């Protein structure tokens, strides 16, 4: 039997937006977060991110391909994926997602093409038969790798990164808008929602890159560039501070105002969400990585490389949990309120198997890594030795070797 508490309306019993709706902003967050990292290099010339710039772009692409799957699994109507893009219904809030998703996909694919163009052409030249035809088609039949053509590529990458960054921010900010614009729900309805979603997307993207950069380096037996990890850790700390500050400020405002909704929200946070909010989002995923990253950033010069990498890795892993908990607390927490705002619905426990179950959520998280592996096989994520400047800023600004260390916040 459902366990409703307080003055709940009799038809306010179940949570209908399942774990898949938690996965939707979680996965979309990685798209925007990784793109922010790649933009720091391509757009703002932060040389310390050079080792992860291509990886970040490929990660953004891999997660973008999976981003709409949780929604389709929840709806059980796969054709609605392409339909939301091709035939949007403009009275629906989701129409905006279709438009922003397809626009960002287009910009990202174009940028990927310009960044990997020389690699595609090199592979086309090296291969024979069907493989050659495949790469020749990918290169659109032009094999121009003259310095002038590469210069044009650099300009195109810069322009596309300039369009892509606001597009990525809009894409994820929009996911926050979808919740923030539901005015009947006081736990969702705040203009801060898109901002918090966007900042926590940056947190999750950077944290994921810290993990997969070191993981891939270990698999390929390459050294991890220390300046890159410490720069990523610094930015992770910066965005984590912003995210948690805003998350807390939102709550403090509600608590201080003591508006009618605070009564039920405080009950929600101390009963149904006490573990996922207080323990996971605030302490395990918030406070602990905050301290670890503070050590990494403030005591950077005293830390041995292994210690720094380990601390950054643990902090990154915990912030991934923080962001997941935040998505969970927003999506599930918001639905636990009865529309009476005087009672709580039955707690939500996701199924293990089934279309919207835990195993499916894990599969959704693993799928982008499979896409990354295929991407690596087809195009190669790592910059080939001696290639020097794929997608890097024009000569003179970029150095091909170990990136110069520039100051980080």
């Amino acid at each position, binding site marked *: 039997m459902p366990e409703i508490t307080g003055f709940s309306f*009799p038809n306010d019993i179940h949570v209908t937006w399942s774990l898949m709706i938690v996965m939707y902003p979680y996965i979309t967050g990685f798209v925007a977060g990784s793109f922010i990292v790649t933009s720091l290099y391509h757009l703002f010339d932060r040389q310390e991110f050079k080792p992860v710039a291509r990886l970040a772009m490929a990660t953004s692409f891999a997660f973008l391909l999976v981003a709409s799957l949780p929604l389709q699994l929840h709806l059980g109507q796969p054709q609605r994926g392409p339909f939301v*893009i*091709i035939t949007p219904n403009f*009275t629906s809030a989701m129409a905006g997602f279709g438009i922003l998703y397809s626009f960002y996909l*287009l910009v990202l694919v174009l940028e990927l093409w310009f960044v990997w163009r020389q690699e595609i052409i090199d592979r086309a030249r090296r291969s024979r038969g069907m493989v050659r035809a495949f790469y020749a088609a990918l290169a659109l039949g032009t094999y121009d790798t003259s310095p002038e053509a590469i210069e044009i590529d650099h300009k195109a990458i810069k322009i596309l990164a300039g369009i892509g960054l606001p597009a990525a921010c809009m894409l994820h900010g929009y996911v926050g808008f979808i919740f923030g614009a539901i005015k009947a729900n006081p736990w969702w309805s705040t203009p801060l929602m898109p901002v918090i979603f966007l900042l926590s997307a940056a947190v999750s993207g950077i944290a994921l890159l810290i993990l997969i950069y070191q993981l891939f380096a270990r698999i390929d037996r390459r050294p991890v560039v220390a300046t890159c990890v410490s720069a990523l850790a610094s930015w992770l700390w910066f965005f984590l501070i912003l995210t948690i500050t805003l998350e807390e400020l939102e709550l403090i405002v509600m608590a201080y105002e003591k508006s009618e909704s605070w009564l039920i929200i405080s009950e929600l946070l101390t009963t149904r969400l006490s573990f996922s909010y207080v323990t996971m989002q605030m302490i395990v995923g918030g406070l602990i990585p905050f301290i670890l990253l503070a050590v990494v950033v403030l005591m950077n010069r005293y830390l041995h490389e292994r210690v720094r990498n380990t601390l950054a890795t643990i902090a990154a892993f915990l912030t991934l949990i923080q962001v997941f908990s935040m998505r969970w607390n927003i999506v599930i927490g918001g639905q636990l309120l*009865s529309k009476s705002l005087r009672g709580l619905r039955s707690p939500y426990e996701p199924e293990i198997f089934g279309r919207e179950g835990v195993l499916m959520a894990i599969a959704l998280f693993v799928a982008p890594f499979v896409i990354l592996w295929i991407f690596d096989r087809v195009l190669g994520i790592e910059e080939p030795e001696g290639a020097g400047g794929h997608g890097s800023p024009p000569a003179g600004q970029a150095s091909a070797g170990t990136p110069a260390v520039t100051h980080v916040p």
Partner: protein
Amino acid sequence: MEHGKHVFRIVILVVVILTVVLLARGFLVPKTYGLYGRYRGANVGEQMNIRPVMHGGAAACADCHGDQAAKRTAGAHKNVSCEICHGPLGAHVKADGTVVKPPIDRSFTLCARCHRKVAARPAKFPQVDLDQHVNGPVEGKVCLQCHDPHSPKP
């Protein structure tokens, strides 16, 4: 722009993709879309035609089961339709007139749907805290051991 050939090709490819999307949109938006609202208008008729009428209403049940119907209309469940517990008429009397035994929901969960204690229900409405009300395990047809659903008494 001798070296910008690849840029022209990718721009043409993008234009082709956008054109295909626009053309696809023309084909994919159904002709009767927007006839009544933001959905395919013809769907209303189609759905109506593919679904046989299943429910007959309490009056149809009374044609054969007069005694039970009279008992129900005299009791507290006079506003609860027969088909809520006994299933739709269409599943009991087939289109060709054959009669099959209907599946009856006698579970305590069906009773609890209306009579479980919920603070938001009107105070006068009969409702119970299941664990305190039932002496023994709350399971199966436990409610029907004491209550007659055709003429329930508190």
